[in-house]
């Protein structure tokens, strides 16, 4: 094995131009894939407030339909309030609104905030990291207390650094007292992200309580040992029993799906909602392999023409008794070493690109990072790439006829 590795490095150093081209191809391909993987990890990975994805079921969309018209959108408060409470197998459940952009004027500056109305349980289903203060509880929701939890960056924009709990800010004509400050949530985490969180009941009218389709979402934290499918089925049964007090509509539909499925259908493809994670992962893998196809073809072509250059070496090895298997192995190892070098290069480049992305502010509060999960994917992708681009050339190499190869005849 050591001699194979040594040989591989020697071969790579012999033709610098080819090594450079191959390294460039591998590093660039893996760079794009790693950046995508870091972004996907940022969206799907168990981090931030949504740290228990396997135990979280969410209800995002709802639709009511009749013969002539249909209305679809986010779930309505009325629908969720009739279906979520006291669900068997569920430890806690929360109803919270979709973010709304609100603008306020603070000391002559215009400040735009994403606000999210939530109940008190929201803070137990999703776990935020509090820098100071504490969340508001269910009493704030029932009594409509004018309180708010703000993110770190929002605190800085309103009050500057320093303690903010107890201070008040004006938002949409209401004065809110800050009770807690949390670490920023990236905007890509669209379920929990906001700049300011405040109690739902702090609305000017309570008309939202009747809506079946509206601008709310629900989340359930499963009790230990509960089966997600059973809870989904029970949710579906409850949805079927919700009365529709409107002659225009006949059917109401909404699903409780896993966090992963719901997020995937939101970002990647609509229609994936409710599909098992394996299908979604399969789709992502297919996309990655399609993207790798062109660089892999490029590398295969390069490798194929390089084999001919090494024909006499192969001829000598074959006439001294090397088996086809040994030659295939040697060539594959060479290719994987190359891919590994490219992968290492790609990791460094990825870190640089991600840091630049974070600084650019293209995605608010994004903190893309290379963690072990992403690097694991990187190693896996590197291996796949090395093998995919190496198998065909290796096979062709092993089939060269020794006599012909020694004489310089190739076909």
């Amino acid at each position: 094995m050591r001699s194979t590795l040594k040989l591989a490095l020697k071969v790579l150093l012999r033709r610098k131009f080819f090594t450079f081209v191959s390294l460039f191809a591998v590093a660039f391909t893996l760079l794009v894939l790693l950046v995508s993987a870091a972004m996907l990890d940022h969206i799907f990975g168990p981090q931030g407030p949504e740290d228990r994805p396997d135990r979280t079921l969410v209800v995002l969309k709802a639709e009511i339909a009749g013969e002539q018209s249909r209305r679809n959108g986010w779930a309505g408060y009325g629908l969720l309030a009739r279906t979520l409470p006291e669900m068997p197998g569920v430890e806690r459940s929360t109803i919270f609104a979709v973010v709304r952009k609100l603008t306020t004027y603070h000391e002559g500056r215009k400040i735009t905030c994403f606000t999210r109305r939530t109940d008190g349980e929201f803070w137990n289903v999703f776990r935020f990291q509090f820098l100071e203060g504490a969340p508001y509880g269910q009493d704030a929701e029932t009594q409509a207390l004018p309180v708010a939890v703000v993110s770190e960056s929002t605190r800085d924009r309103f009050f500057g650094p320093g303690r903010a709990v107890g201070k008040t800010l004006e938002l949409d004509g209401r004065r809110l007292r800050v009770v807690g400050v949390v670490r920023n949530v990236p905007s890509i985490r669209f379920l929990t992200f906001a700049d300011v969180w405040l109690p739902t009941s702090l609305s000017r009218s309570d008309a939202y309580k009747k809506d079946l389709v509206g601008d709310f979402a629900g989340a359930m934290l499963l009790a230990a040992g509960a089966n997600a499918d059973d809870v989904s089925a029970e949710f579906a049964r409850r949805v079927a029993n919700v009365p529709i007090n409107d002659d225009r509509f006949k059917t109401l539909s909404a699903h409780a799906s896993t966090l992963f499925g719901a997020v995937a259908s939101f970002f990647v493809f609509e229609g994936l909602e409710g599909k098992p994670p394996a299908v979604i992962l399969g789709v992502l893998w297919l996309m990655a392999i399609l993207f790798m196809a062109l660089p892999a073809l490029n590398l295969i072509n390069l490798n194929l023409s390089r084999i001919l250059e090494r024909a006499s070496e192969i001829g000598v090895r074959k006439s001294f008794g090397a088996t086809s298997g040994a030659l295939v192995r040697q060539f594959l190892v060479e290719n994987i070493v190359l891919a590994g070098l490219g992968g290492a290069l790609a990791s460094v480049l990825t870190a640089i690109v991600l840091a630049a992305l974070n600084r650019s502010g293209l995605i608010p509060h994004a903190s893309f990072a290379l963690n072990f999960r992403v690097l694991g994917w990187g190693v896996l992708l590197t291996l796949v790439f090395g093998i995919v681009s190496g198998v065909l050339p290796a096979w062709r190499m092993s089939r060269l006829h020794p006599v012909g190869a020694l004489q310089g005849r190739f076909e």
Partner: protein
Amino acid sequence: MIRHLLKLAWHRKRSNALLLVEITASFLVVFAVAVLALYFGSNWRRPLGFDWKDTWSILISDETMEGSQDPENDARLAARLLDELEAVPGIVAAAGVDSPPYVEWTNTNNLKVDGRIVEFMSSGATVGADRVLGLKLIAGRWFTGEDDAQPWQGVVIDRDLANDFFGTVQCVGRPVPGTTNEGEHEQRVVGIIEEFRKNGELAPPGNFLFWHVSAEARTGPARTNALVVRVAPGSSVALEEAVVGRLRALAPQWSFDIRPLEQLRSTRFWMVCTPLLVLGIVAEFLLLMVGLGLIGVVWQNVARRTRELGLRRAMGATRLGICRQVLAELVLISAMALLVGTVLVVQIPLFEVFDILPSTIVFGAALLAMASVLAIALAAGLYPSWITTRIHPAEALRHD
């Protein structure tokens, strides 16, 4: 000559096949990027139909999806808001519009006219919205107070929709097809505007219809979802704050969100351009990679054929001739790959897979992609083919 080159290529069909696939794949990548670039470029060049400078949109929301309990009152209040706004110093004009330019939501309608489906976007608008948005009327007039008393609802449509509905822009006073029967309330065209591309410069052209919204009218909805306001050039945030304060004092049950159109426009622009830019950069690197790979392949190929090329030199072929042969072989393979790619791509307009893509864009993109792939192939072949000119016939013949 070409027949001979074809024979040479056929002899090495196995390695050439993979090269062919690679070049075809590169062609498809360039084609995809070119289609997007041409598509947005052609949209960008069309007239916009409105003026976004020094204009704000103010979204009104009342925290319910079902609508208000008291539409009569809402209508009067909305009309008062407009009067109050126009009294604010620094505001030139104000009007109500349901979907202001660049906002994310749109109302889309389908009507069946003479067996064809005509699709158009629509929005309510009040008296004066044409002045605020700078719409250009080409026939008839914008809404006025006299529309209030009519039993029908006045609408203003753009030139494209007039052509789709009636086949002519001389259609002022005619009813909108389909609204006269079945007891639906009738809509009548009162004016034609040149164009209104609500989704901005990058969006595809579409038909547009404004219907009349007024507190006094006997038909239609009472208020619009949003207001548009033309302000004096160089207005500051202080004016925004003052306006929101005044609006909130008048209608405490509503929320108001001021967005200058300029800001909405740049947001929309970057939402479209950022993915396109990323795609373009990735494609560019892919092509660079393919180009470098091709250099390697051709180089290796030439090095291996030193004897053959040397023999041709010994038999009297010129340096230029050899150089040309190497390049011609490369171009031949590229041409075959481009043929395959074009055959694939031509299916798009034939089968109307994407009917929003006009065939001119598809063919233009195919041409662009062909030109760039050929350019890359030629550029990649230059250095290896130059090497062949250094082959000395006598040495080459002894070479093994």
